[in-house]
């Protein structure tokens, strides 16, 4: 039975740099990587600086949202800086994410790994934060340098979050 020919687009690849550890800053990187895999695009994420928190075993379940200085936040900056506000905002955001059946960051990392997206940690940031590979979630494949990142990113579109 004749059917439409598949679109034979060139082999695509994205390299995503995740440099911040806020809940609102980590999700875009994870969702973009996941969407890439779902669209048949190769994807890998390079976690550096505070972004490392997203793949650190002790931190991944406790990522916060910083409302202070966020112009889109409904909370006045004066109040957003008070103690506990980060945790409160994170709690609210996690609640609305749960309503959307959005997976948690830990689940997202699991999904990404299964979908074939590769996760890497930044060597320099690891040294800076005095972390070893054992401190990271098992989905992180390796600790690489910025130079290694460019070797991996040959032919890829690079996204910085």
């Amino acid at each position, binding site marked *: 039975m004749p059917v439409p020919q598949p679109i034979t687009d060139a082999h695509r690849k994205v390299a995503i740099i995740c440099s911040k550890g806020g809940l609102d800053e980590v999700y875009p990187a994870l969702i973009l990587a996941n969407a890439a895999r779902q669209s*048949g695009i190769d994807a890998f994420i390079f976690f550096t600086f505070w972004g490392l928190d997203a793949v650190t075993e002790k931190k991944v379940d406790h990522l916060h949202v910083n409302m202070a200085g966020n112009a889109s936040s409904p909370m006045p900056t004066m109040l957003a800086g008070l103690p506990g506000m980060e945790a409160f905002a994170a709690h609210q955001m996690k609640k609305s994410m749960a309503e959307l059946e959005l997976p948690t960051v830990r689940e997202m990392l699991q999904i990404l790994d*299964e979908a*074939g997206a590769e996760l890497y940690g930044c060597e320099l940031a690891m040294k800076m934060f005095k972390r070893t590979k054992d401190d990271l979630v098992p989905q992180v494949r390796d600790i690489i340098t910025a130079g290694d990142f460019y070797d991996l990113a040959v032919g890829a579109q690079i996204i910085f979050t």
Partner: protein
Amino acid sequence: MMQEDLIPIVQRLDTLLAGVASLTERQRKQEELIAELTPIAKVALATGIDKLDALDKQGYFAFGKELIDIGKKIVEGFSPGDVHQLGDAIVQILEAVKAMTQPSVLAVAADAVSVVDDAADVKPLGIFGMVRATKNDDVQKGMAIMLEVLRRVGHGANVAAGQRAALEDKKSKLAGILGSRKQKRLGTERKALPAQAVTRSAVTPTPSGASCAPGKPQPTAAVIDGVAYTADGHLADAAQWSRSLGEALAEMQGVTMTQAHWGIIDAARSDHATTGSAPNIRRLTQIASVTTKDLYTLFPKAPGRTIAKIAGLPKPAGCL
């Protein structure tokens, strides 16, 4: 006759002689005066030069020169129109100064300034202290005055802005009449999108939850062998699907169907029949009880879309 003729001449000579004598006398007096004055003048001149020298040393001449320069700059920097306006404004300035220097106003200002002298007695204040302080009548009055000053300043600024805007408007109208100058706008150098992209986006349907209802066919881009397809290669109408068509579609996607594959396709089709939308990967893992990894193993390239295509469903909605 000779004598008679000589008389007036002698008389004229007498007068002349008298005149010469008087002149000689004056000349003598002048010479005396000069002789007397010269030493005095010399002293005066010397003193004068000393005086000027002292003034120069004190910087008066440099100052004067600077003053001339300033005057020059003022003349260069201001047009006659400006000076005319200044003339008008001077009255207002003087009135403002007069109003500011009224004894009552000065007393208030002096009283306010005296706070700085008594600063040692003033206690530090936090944000709640500020709120408490607003209960004081004097503070309330002061705040009201400050706000009124702000309001007037703001009003004045708005009026000035309005005048400027009117001026700009006039200028632009004038420019319109005289013909526009060559203006470069950022971004205009970018080429317009190719016509192809525009037509494609016009044909491609935008999938949304509502448009995925079963029995509601998607816009058709091509009809092959009596089966309608959308622009992105999905079946336009899920009802047209048959197992043999699914087999052919799978072959075209490079997928060799096994029992495991069919299990997922069937789950996707039944989910579409109940919910009205094509399941995304996350939903597939829940309804077909498979892992994400299984889906990527069975359908390596873009599992969500591939499954939807083989199952004859529209493109799955959502990010996950």
